[in-house]
């Protein structure tokens, strides 16, 4: 199978806060991790809070540079996280959609094609042309999800962003992400939901304290994860 992303011995350590520097506190982050993401797979990442799941995803998206190691990939990558970040409250939903698209490296023409779909998915009607300072938090989230899922990358990275909006919008978002996963082909998803990961993933990576524990068959890795949780 073709490799779409390769991570070789990557390390990223967050600085220890000043008040803990005199103590022997281990910096959090990712240490010496190597990984290959293959074309067409759905790779899940699981681990306890603070195990480095989101940090790893941000490094894969090229948001955070590693302190050492190499990350290389083929094609485009998109991170579905922090939905709505970058929106400007004085701009309308439509203007923000264009700005977000430009931030994702899309041209105005590409966004022109998608703008009606973004509007209808977000269910904002006439609010779409009003400043988003007038939006409720649910409306902002709907616009965020709608814009973020409108562009189809070669490698899609998802960091638990589906818990927004009311029940019917959550269901719709889940369907949209599943559709995006089918179209993107290769997906890496971070979640605490063992049920979700076991139902959609072809492989799961288990992280603990920033280090690689195991990777492989979803059921076997989830068993290992449960054992790890019991140790606490």
């Amino acid at each position: 199978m073709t490799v779409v992303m390769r991570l070789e011995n990557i390390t990223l350590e967050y600085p220890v806060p000043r008040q803990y520097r005199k103590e022997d506190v281990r910096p959090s982050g990712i240490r010496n991790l190597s990984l290959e993401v293959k074309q067409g797979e759905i790779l899940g990442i699981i681990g306890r809070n603070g195990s480095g799941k989101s940090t790893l995803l941000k490094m894969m998206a090229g948001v955070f540079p590693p302190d050492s190691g190499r990350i290389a990939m083929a094609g485009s990558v998109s991170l579905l996280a922090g939905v709505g970040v970058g929106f400007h409250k004085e701009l309308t939903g439509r203007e923000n959609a264009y700005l977000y698209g430009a931030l994702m490296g899309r041209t105005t023409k590409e966004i022109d094609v998608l703008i009606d779909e973004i509007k209808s998915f977000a269910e904002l009607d006439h609010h779409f042309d009003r400043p988003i300072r007038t939006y409720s938090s649910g409306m902002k989230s709907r616009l965020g999800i709608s814009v973020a899922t409108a562009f189809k990358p070669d490698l899609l990275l998802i960091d638990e962003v589906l818990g927004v909006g009311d029940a019917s919008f959550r269901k719709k978002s889940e369907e949209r992400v599943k559709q995006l996963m089918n179209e993107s082909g290769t997906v890496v998803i971070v979640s605490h939901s063992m049920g979700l990961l076991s139902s959609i993933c072809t492989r799961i990576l288990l992280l603990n304290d920033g280090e690689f524990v195991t990777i492989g068959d979803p059921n076997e890795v989830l068993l290992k994860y449960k054992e790890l949780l019991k140790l606490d």
Partner: protein
Amino acid sequence: MSQVDGDDGLTPLWGKRSLHRLPFIVLKDLYSSRHLLKLLIKRDLSGKYRRAYLGYAWAVLEPLLLAIVYTFIFTILVGSSDPLYPVKIILGIIGWTMFARSLTTSAKSLSSSINLFQFARVPKTVFATSGTLTNAVLALISLTCLIPFYFIHDLPITANLFLLPVWLILLSFTGWGIGLLLAPIACKVPDVLNLINFLIRAGFFLSPVMWTYDMFNSRFGSGWHGIVAHMNPTVIPITGMRDAVLGETSNIPGYGYAMCFGIAIIGFILGAMIFERKAHSAVVNV
């Protein structure tokens, strides 16, 4: 930022780039992201006065009102009888504001959009530049407040007037370069932002906003005071702006020009190098 290397046919997300090429990479990134840059300038401009009844008129009113206040204060304190003093003050305010805002917006660009930089791979130089260009547009609008003075004082329209945008661009470029230099450290150490705010306030009085180059020369002469004063990169450009509008020629020594252009170019080269090397890791460490 990327080029295919190794034998796996994959493109590294963080390619190796030599230090001396970084200023060119900054300019190349800006050109390739010009669409985003345009949208960010539009966003900043439309957001700035969108809810104000007078809208963009504030860009003209701000320097005009400040000039009235400063002229009033200065006339009382110093007893200046120069009828062109208000024009000089307006040009001083526009020039200084251009420099100060360019510097602060680019220095604060990483910390002010930190949430975005922690979730999306976006060209950070574009964010560090959009504020500078937005202020350049506002400065151009502000210049229209000079039009009535051309009629009141019958000011000459000479070829020197073409130098006005040159000096404004130089002020903006200098502020942008110094801002790029400071942005990564300002993102990691918030105290730097406080220091910048203080220096900008102090710089207002140390720059020829309320005083002029001639006033300085007649008081201190051209000894070591003059050399120190020329280290301030706003002294010559603001004086140049006044000369361009009033059709005058100030007695500026050659080293004065060399210093202000030198500071601008060195500031940009160092700023671009430090920004490109440190900005990406600076947003991780917050």
